[in-house]
């Protein structure tokens, strides 16, 4: 610890006296704050691409078969002849939308951005344990993003087997055109992404364990850090399993092995593969896939805990219970993956076990929700845009969470599986919650990232358009699913032949959903404008704009290399001393020593 301090300190001094070169400052930077911003920029760009893809296929769903200039503008004659989307490309859009959103926006953008920016700042470290590995982690992420984008432009189309890329569909180019080069690029991109995620996660874990400043006990860490810590552990334990799943799939595709293939005739060709099991892939995939949901959610919950406590001017209610529920969710997330596979032919008894473990997760989740509610109770709420997004997150976490109870109940999952009910559920609980957490984080820590303030009025406008728009998209989707509509269908017109009631419902609701989707997408322009404008032209930020207790607000606004000029701060108290009775101001920074006779929390 001491030797590191000395080293980091020396390093800092050295840089104080001369300007850094552009390349080492902005491109191959090893400074955690810059790397965090690089993650954020890349993820925002990827998120925009994925959002555009979703608008393209939503147009097809609302007005099937109608010619659209918008589609031909973006997809050209090859994939949208006469402005009508091709079936294959529809699946390609859905697949890449899902992949980018889950991995590149919500994993890279959330954990990558905020773990990088906040871990050293909130635990009181000069930088990450390994600046070089941190840089490597970003550049792997950038490379994998690039490959994923390139896969959209190959002649045979991008991967088309859904974001879960189940074999045999993803293994056989004869089955769908996207399973050719597009799928190969998908797998290579994901393999590199996994490497990036692993390097990053190991770094986060080591930094949190080893580089906490004096007095920063584990039980004095802000909940953000607890969330990032557990997230990183989940990533380290589960991503390698996805890598193995991907490698076996690569071997099946390129080397003629039969891990996932058995007794198949495709495109008139009788394959000799025998003895493999497509179910094996699903087990491996969901062994990552379910923890992945929490890799996405936990950072968002951590950020919102911090934002809510700060802006309610109250300590987060039940700090220890919050840590306990993060740990419980983290542990349980490893033993629930089978609930994605109730109707795959998995042994029904095994299914029962997964029902039990899955529904257990509802308990720590409920604890979290009630603790948030009690934190708001009798608070003195300052409704900044970040605070509104954090409260919005709690709402979507509830609304999306309760439908999870239905899907986790195997007997009910039989009829709900792979319908729009599932799509509604996970978009609200995972997509909306995580995106709200991310927006909240950006609005809250923007002054720390760029030394300037974002425009608050535009922030409010952005929040309201996003909240109404996103709920407007995903809330009616439940009813489409309850009517029985399968997901990943290019067109529901066939319903008119056998069930006109359901058909009308689907047409109506799909048009409403697409309209809201377009509104919500346009609303993001407000954010982009505010974000980029404020980076350059926003008013200068004060050191501690939200009157917050945590360490990052004790660093200078100038964001120097090494974070603190002079000595590292010493921590004397927990991070949630807001509105302590008898205190002079309504917040006491962690660096303030206990007063005489004052009890540590």
């Amino acid at each position: 610890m001491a030797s590191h301090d000395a080293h980091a300190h020396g390093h800092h001094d050295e840089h104080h006296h001369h300007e850094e070169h552009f390349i080492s400052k902005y491109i191959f930077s090893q400074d955690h704050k810059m790397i965090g911003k690089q993650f954020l920029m890349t993820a925002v760009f990827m998120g925009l691409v994925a959002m555009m893809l979703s608008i393209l296929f939503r147009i097809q769903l609302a007005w099937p078969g109608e010619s659209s200039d918008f589609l031909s503008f973006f997809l050209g004659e090859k994939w949208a002849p006469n402005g009508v989307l091709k079936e294959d490309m529809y699946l390609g859009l859905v697949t890449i939308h899902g992949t980018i959103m889950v991995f590149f926006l919500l994993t890279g953008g959330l954990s990558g951005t905020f773990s990088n920016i906040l871990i050293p700042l909130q635990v009181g470290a000069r930088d990450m344990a390994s600046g070089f590995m941190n840089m490597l982690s970003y550049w792997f992420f950038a490379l994998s993003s690039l490959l994923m984008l390139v896969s959209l432009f190959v002649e045979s189309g991008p991967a088309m087997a859904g974001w879960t890329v189940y074999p045999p569909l993803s293994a056989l180019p004869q089955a769908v055109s996207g399973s050719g080069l597009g799928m190969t690029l998908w797998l290579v991109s994901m393999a590199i992404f996994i490497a990036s995620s692993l390097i990053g996660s190991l770094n986060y874990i080591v930094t949190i364990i080893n580089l906490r400043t004096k007095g920063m006990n584990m039980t004095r860490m802000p909940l953000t850090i607890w969330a990032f810590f557990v997230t990183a552990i989940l990533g380290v334990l589960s991503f390698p399993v996805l890598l193995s799943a991907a490698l076996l799939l690569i071997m099946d595709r390129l080397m003629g092995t039969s891990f996932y293939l058995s007794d198949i005739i495709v495109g008139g060709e009788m394959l000799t593969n025998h003895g493999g099991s497509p179910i094996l892939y699903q087990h491996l995939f969901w062994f990552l896939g379910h923890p992945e949901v929490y890799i996405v959610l936990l950072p968002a919950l951590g950020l919102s805990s911090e934002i809510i406590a700060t802006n309610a001017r109250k300590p987060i209610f039940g700090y220890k219970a919050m840590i306990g529920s993060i740990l419980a969710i983290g542990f349980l997330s490893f033993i629930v993956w089978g609930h994605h596979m109730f109707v795959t032919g998995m042994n029904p008894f095994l299914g029962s076990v997964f029902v039990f473990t899955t529904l257990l997760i509802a308990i720590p989740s409920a604890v979290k929700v009630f603790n948030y509610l009690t934190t708001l109770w009798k608070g003195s709420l300052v409704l900044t845009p970040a605070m509104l997004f954090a409260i919005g997150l709690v709402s979507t976490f509830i609304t999306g969470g309760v439908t999870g109870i239905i899907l986790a109940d195997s007997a009910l999952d039989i009829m709900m599986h792979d319908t729009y009910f599932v799509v509604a559920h996970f978009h609200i609980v995972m997509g909306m919650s995580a995106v709200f957490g991310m927006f909240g984080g950006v609005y809250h820590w923007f002054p720390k990232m760029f030394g300037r303030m974002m425009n608050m009025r535009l922030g409010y406008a952005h929040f309201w358009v996003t909240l109404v728009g996103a709920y407007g998209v995903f809330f009616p989707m439940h009813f489409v699913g309850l009517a029985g509509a399968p997901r990943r269908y290019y067109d529901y017109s066939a319903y008119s032949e056998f069930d006109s009631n359901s058909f009308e419902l689907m047409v109506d609701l799909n048009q409403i959903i697409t309209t809201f989707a377009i509104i919500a997408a346009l609303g993001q322009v407000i954010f982009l404008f505010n974000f980029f404008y404020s980076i350059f032209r926003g008013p200068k930020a004060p050191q501690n704009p939200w009157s917050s207790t945590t360490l990052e607000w004790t660093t200078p606004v100038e964001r120097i290399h090494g974070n603190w000029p002079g000595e590292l701060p010493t921590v004397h108290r927990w991070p949630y001393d807001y509105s302590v009775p008898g205190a002079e101001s309504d917040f006491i920074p962690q660096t303030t020593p206990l007063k005489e006779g004052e009890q540590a929390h």
Partner: protein
Amino acid sequence: MENKLIILLVIVLGAIAIAQLVRVYEISSKLRKHQEHEVSNRDNNLNGRLMFAFMIFLFGSFIYLMKAYGWTGRGSAASEEGIEMDWLLNLNFVIIIAIFFLTNFLLFFFTWKYVKKPGVPAFYYPHNNKLEMLWTVVPAIVLAVIIILGLQTWSHLTGPTNSEAERIELFSKQFDWTARYAGADNTLGLYDYKLTLDNNELALLTTNTIDSSLNNMLNGVTGIRSLQKLLNNRDTIFSDSTLNVLRTDLSRKERLYRFLTQMKQNHNAKLDASAWDDIIQKDTLYLCKGQEYEIALRAKDVIHSAYFPHFRAQMNAVPGMATRMKFTPNKTTAEMRVEKNDAKFNYILMCNKICGGAHYKMKMVVVVLDRPAYKKWMDGKKNATFKDQYFPVAAAAPADTTATMN
């Protein structure tokens, strides 16, 4: 092209307009000495009220959607199992809707009620073990009820069928379904994918089908012999890549031929009968009201999923793996048409696992008849068995075939 230019122009002008507005806002903020990180009481109260208004909007639209579309938008259950599931679904819905209303109400109500009022400090309330215990134990009890009821239903739904259950196989491939009824003996004939031929699309296993597959593999148009001939022909010159493809193809077929030969040696001809009387049915699946069905599922190429939305039944069909499902239709198509007030209504079997470009078109109409009508339909199929349709001359008694083979 002009359209695109106009769109671009509008976007650019819009961006400039917003930029100007923000400048104006900034200048006026400076004049008012407004700090960007300080939320004014006006903004605070406005957003608090808007949050509460949003809650009313959310609840209102939920109630509206519920009334307009209901939680069983696909109509009442059309199978015995579906009725059991709907009961469980309704119970679960009551619970989760109550939680949805209660917690969302508290959230938005608190946001509105406890918005910052100058001079009123927040209440320092870091924890309360009793409260925390309360909201750990209560959800645990509710979940215990949900789990117990759910697992009871689950074990019913996935348990074995009665011996009277009629057996049907659903065979899936890109992008259609084929049904195979077990015939008079209610036993489905065995199959092996290597026996797939034009006259044996379902790859049923009989002495005759093995023979014709062997013959086709050896003497067919692209069989082993013609490939060998092609490769041994000294007058033609192939490029390396073509040669490679042909050789791979040949070795694959030789391997398959070996497997087929082994199959022939191990085949028990007594099993032929169970395949011969199977009835292969395309386009429409006929079922009988009140009859329990034991459905076997099979996939030829990729994973498909047999999904009957009205029966509330679903199971994946996985290449190389046998899966099963069961259900008992309890309303005829005619009855459901009256109930839904839709003369064109039909039950449907859809594919519900992404399987390629035309995934959304992969379906089969299902017709549920009452018992007399079903029996009549079945009787009409008596002379349209697998054997009648594809191997009418293979009349030799199974025993004789065995004798000659030995």
